[in-house]
């Protein structure tokens, strides 16, 4: 996958590497990603072709830590297609299908089955920040950016994130919807 922001509008397949094997996930519109988001931890398998999913299943079942491998790859995948940390992408996509968010996006002419997930995510962010003053925008950015409690990577070390439920409640209060990170 390219590293530029052009990936947000890309209709090209996305490459993932799972347990050492490479797979090309076909382009799917935002709607497909949002529908599959309920299974965040297995997203990479769900976005694959049926044939690749079979190979992935065998690979994952063969690994003692297969579940963790798939979870990490799935989260990286969401980050890559939305060009944001996965939890930000997740929260934005979740907000985008709240009645309020979806209504505004529809009125703005956005169609989840006609655009790339990166585009949809960017439009959702724009929707929630376009009329915000500096303070509100900063608050929104801050709440969006807080990693969930179970997140670990080199950038964050062993630091514990804030309580994800508390963040989601705050996000929902600010924006009027959302189902929260379930993965």
């Amino acid at each position, binding site marked *: 996958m390219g590293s530029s922001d052009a990936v947000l509008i890309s209709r090209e397949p996305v490459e993932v590497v799972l347990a050492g094997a490479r797979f090309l996930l076909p382009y799917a519109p935002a709607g497909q990603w949002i529908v599959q988001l309920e*299974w965040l931890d297995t997203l990479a398998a*769900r976005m694959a072709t049926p044939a690749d999913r079979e190979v992935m299943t065998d690979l994952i*079942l063969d690994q003692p830590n297969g579940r963790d491998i798939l979870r990490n790859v799935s989260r990286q995948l969401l980050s890559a297609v939305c060009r944001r940390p996965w939890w930000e992408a997740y929260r934005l996509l979740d907000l985008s299908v709240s009645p309020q968010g979806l209504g505004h996006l529809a009125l703005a002419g956005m169609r989840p089955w006609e655009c790339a997930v990166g585009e949809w995510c960017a439009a959702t962010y724009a929707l929630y920040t376009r009329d915000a003053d500096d303070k509100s925008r900063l608050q929104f950015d801050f709440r969006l950016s807080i990693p969930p409690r179970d997140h670990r990577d080199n950038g964050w070390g062993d630091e514990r994130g804030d309580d994800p439920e508390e963040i989601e409640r705050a996000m929902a209060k600010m924006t009027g919807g959302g189902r929260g990170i379930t993965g």
Partner: protein
Amino acid sequence: MDDTKTFKIQLKGRAYDWAPITPAQLERMQLVLAMDASSERILRVITRIVAASAGPEQWETLSDRIVDGEIGMDDLVEHLHKVAQRMAKDTKARGK
């Protein structure tokens, strides 16, 4: 945990003795379901767990019922959850 302990639970009108199901087995089952794997893969994982838990003799009668379509995958998954729940309850009760 007592490895010889079994749990008698009915599956569609017939009672079977189930050996405890390990968390790793349950995790594998949940993983293939969450991956939206093909019925063939799901069946392979689930039947392995069922066969191990129910034992060879009961497995034979069970597999006949599966082949006849009397017992479906959903029934099996739900049933394995029941076995795991009973197992957890039993462990908890003995811990008191």
